[in-house]
């Protein structure tokens, strides 16, 4: 977030982008100001896809009208349609793009041969889209074929994803499985025919095509596991994402109006976020991670130059309706450990269940706010753990981070961004020297879509104030004893100011640096500590201050939380105090 590069002038063009989430629809207007694209206004309204409205277009129009009211610029005509392109009088906008996570996930049955091979790869491909695995069919299934067929018919999946067999490898077992799928899918062909995606042994494609016949919608993707050692997820993941667009987004009530307005194809939010994260990784020339803690899903994506980006979408967790699912994936005690003892288990449990009933609501008291944050921590921890396992297996990622992008109103609209940062550090466990940017206006994925068609406009918008720069963070790796020196920091800013800070192991320090102010920072880790350049190796960087200055987190990972309630509470309060309360 420090780039001083200037971008060439692009022809002036205004654009409106929308992010239709499960709870809220956010709209932002960008236009040329002082020779560059800037965020002019942003507004949000409830997403109106579900009852009582059942017209997603209504909430979108409401948000657009809020922008029109705030800017005095007419954007909608008398019929409520977007005026496009912009008129000479200043009415309307030139371009419109939207991303969607408002639609429910694809109910998916997964069929494959081996849990740790083809099924593992298939799950990675499926987790790159809004899917919900409702059943798995394998040769090792304890159910017989009759029961497997009944399961397909009774669960009425949107898609059946078949993987298995390396290219030119296993055939018979896979064909048996396909026959089972065939019978189940045929039984549903008159009511709700599922779409079948085949991403297994490519030698069987034609056989499977003829086996499934014309009455079953078959889509063929590259084998997700062409050999035991290789994996190719891209094609299958794209195909699944396409099905989400066709079967779910396009079924949203009122969607046709939005399609008619759009200058760019509609995209699922998660894919657009992965796209813009990848752009940032190229621009920053380093590893970039993005986390989106949404109402009905959680997305984690990371990208690095010259490597395929990774994406994990969890539709079973979120801060709205699925928040209650965390109680099935973690014990209530796992959530309670992040709370002061004055809050009871019953209070936390009731709040979480209520939030699931009223996903649009926000905490009304400080204690409810703490409970929401504790639940968010546990959700993020769960997502990060599963994504890490799926992406890296037993070899966790150690490459230092360069940029962390953060989305979701729980994280970006928090009254105390330092608490948000602490939560991110505790759950994502990033290391290295990196900056943190909050997507406070909810524009990041939609800008990702725009970047494909209007790259200059999107880059200029991002370089403007579309993101909120929280500041820089340094997290060394290494273990030590509490009180032992972990790092020395020397900061020199333009006005001959010099500040030296010694950071002890087990603590968090904030080095003040005003937003926008540049400084040269010499970071010298102690012998056993590494900030991404080797143990004990220092680095001098030029940074620009953000809302929180520069944060040094020398607590060491994994965090050792005391089992004793009082000791744990004291330690957590200490960390909160250290990071700014």
């Amino acid at each position, binding site marked *: 977030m420090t780039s001083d590069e200037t971008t060439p002038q692009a022809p002036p063009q205004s654009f409106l982008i929308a992010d239709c989430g499960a709870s809220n629809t956010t709209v932002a207007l960008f236009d040329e100001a002082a020779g560059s694209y800037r965020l002019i206004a942003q507004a949000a309204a409830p997403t109106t896809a579900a009852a009582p409205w059942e017209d997603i277009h209504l909430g979108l129009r409401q948000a657009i009208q809020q922008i029109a009211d705030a800017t005095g610029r007419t954007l909608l005509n008398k019929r409520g349609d977007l005026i496009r392109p912009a008129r000479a009088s200043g009415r309307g906008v030139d371009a419109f793009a939207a991303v969607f996570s408002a639609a429910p996930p694809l109910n998916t049955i997964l069929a494959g041969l081996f849990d740790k091979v083809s099924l593992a790869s298939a799950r990675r491909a499926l987790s790159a889209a809004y899917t919900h695995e409702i059943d798995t069919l394998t040769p090792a299934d304890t159910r017989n074929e009759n029961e497997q067929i009944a399961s397909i018919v009774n669960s009425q999946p949107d898609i059946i994803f078949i993987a298995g067999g390396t290219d030119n490898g296993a055939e018979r077992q896979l064909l048996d499985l396909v026959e089972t799928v065939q019978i189940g899918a*045929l039984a549903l062909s008159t009511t709700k025919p599922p779409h079948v995606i085949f991403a297994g042994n490519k030698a069987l494609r034609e056989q499977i095509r003829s086996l499934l016949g014309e009455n079953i919608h078959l889509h063929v993707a590259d084998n997700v596991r062409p050999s035991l050692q290789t994996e190719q997820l891209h094609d299958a993941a794209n195909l699944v994402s396409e099905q989400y667009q066709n079967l779910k987004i396009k079924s949203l009530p009122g969607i046709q109006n939005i399609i008619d307005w759009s200058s760019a194809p509609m995209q699922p939010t998660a894919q657009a976020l992965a796209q813009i994260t990848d752009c940032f990784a190229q621009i920053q020339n380093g590893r970039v991670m993005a986390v989106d803690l949404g109402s009905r899903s959680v997305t984690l994506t990371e990208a690095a130059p010259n490597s395929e980006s990774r994406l994990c979408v969890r539709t079973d967790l979120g801060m709205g309706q699925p928040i209650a699912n965390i109680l099935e994936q973690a014990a209530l005690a796992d959530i309670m450990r992040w709370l002061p003892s004055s809050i009871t288990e019953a209070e936390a449990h009731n709040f979480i269940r209520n939030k699931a009933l009223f996903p649009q609501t926000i905490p009304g008291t400080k204690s409810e706010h703490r409970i929401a944050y504790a639940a968010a921590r546990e959700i993020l921890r769960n997502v990060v753990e599963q994504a890490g396992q799926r992406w890296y297996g037993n070899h966790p990622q150690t490459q230092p981070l360069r940029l962390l992008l953060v989305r979701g109103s729980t994280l970006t609209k928090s009254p105390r961004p330092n608490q948000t940062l602490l939560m991110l550090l505790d759950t994502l466990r990033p290391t290295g020297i990196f900056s943190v940017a909050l997507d406070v206006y909810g524009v990041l994925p939609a800008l990702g879509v725009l970047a494909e068609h209007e790259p200059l406009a999107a880059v200029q918008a991002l370089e403007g104030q579309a993101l909120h720069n929280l500041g820089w963070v340094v997290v060394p790796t290494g273990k030590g004893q509490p009180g032992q020196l972990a790092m020395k920091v020397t900061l020199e800013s333009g006005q001959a100011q010099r500040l030296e800070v010694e950071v002890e192991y087990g603590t968090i320090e904030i080095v003040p640096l005003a937003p926008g102010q540049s400084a040269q920072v010499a970071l010298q880790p102690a012998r056993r500590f590494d900030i991404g350049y080797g143990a004990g190796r220092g680095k001098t960087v030029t940074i620009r201050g953000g809302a929180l200055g520069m944060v040094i987190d020398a607590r060491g990972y994994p965090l050792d939380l005391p089992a004793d309630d009082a000791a744990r509470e004291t330690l957590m309060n200490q960390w909160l105090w250290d990071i700014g309360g």
Partner: protein
Amino acid sequence: MQFLSHSTIVSPLTRIRRERLLPNDGDVIAKIGQEVSPVQVLARSPLKVTFEVVPVCQQLRISPEKLAELLAVQVGSMVEAGDVVVKKRGFGSKAYLSPVNGVLHSVVNGRLVFSQVAEFVELRALARSRVVNRIANRGVLLEINGSRIQAVWDSGKEGFGTVHVAGETAVTPFTADPINTELSDNVLVTGKITEAEPLEQAQRSGISGLIAGSITADLLPIAQAMNYPIFITGGIGEQGMSEPIFQLLQKSEARHIALFSSPPNLAGQRPEIIIPLEAVPGEDLPPAGQPLTAGQTVRILQKPYYNQVGIVTQLHQSKRIMETGSSVYGADVKLTDEQTVFVPIVNLDAII
């Protein structure tokens, strides 16, 4: 600036239109214009289907191509256990008999696939009403004049009975004391559910249903395990029932009441409590989900005024800071105790 708000219907008298839809395609039995009773079946569909796949070619040593010629029944036909399904004539004649009562569903690669409906779902009217529309293969639209209350949670079951208010106030907890077998056809109304034992006692007494303002989170799985429907009108916790809902149910003592659950596959259709009032024609309600206006009655959905009802006196056009520090759009709401409080718009539920 306008603010859209979620809403809840709590209406003493209105013309109610309620869709009754099957989870899957099935047979719609009721006809447009038909007056139906609470127990009347409107539509029926298979809920669970079982399958039996038989490798008949292998068993009879015939080719899959030959099988089509030897079928004694057509694909899609009903069969009974013992019916001849495949007959091989001539030297070494053999027959294959149906193993099930069901349907010869399909023939796939030399295998016979039989299906059997293991479980049906039947949609009953639950309230005396009139069928005003048929939704092809899925269900009907019923019209009822009466009181209508939208709930926020149900235990997954539905039913009907006679209203009996079991608690004195909107916040009285449900206890085992008033429950006996004389209440077997009753739908009980209580302020809040905070203990498991009364739920079990109610099951033993054979009640027809239970309506409460709130239930504590730990009791949700127990409530779902009960054999009678449990409907929650307010939310999770110990806050009890909103006063307008409690008063409406109190006035409905001894009347017929129907509990319509929220079908899991129909997102958006909320659980509803309907009390038919046949003698009086109701009027249509204003549409739900309209922008909030001053004068609107609202219910508050989060603490510190959780479950309280009041009237919007002012909608703020700029954001204000809450106790939590969050900056939000909100409204001033005058509560029944005359206190006026600021509440975020997203924590308001318009009562219509």
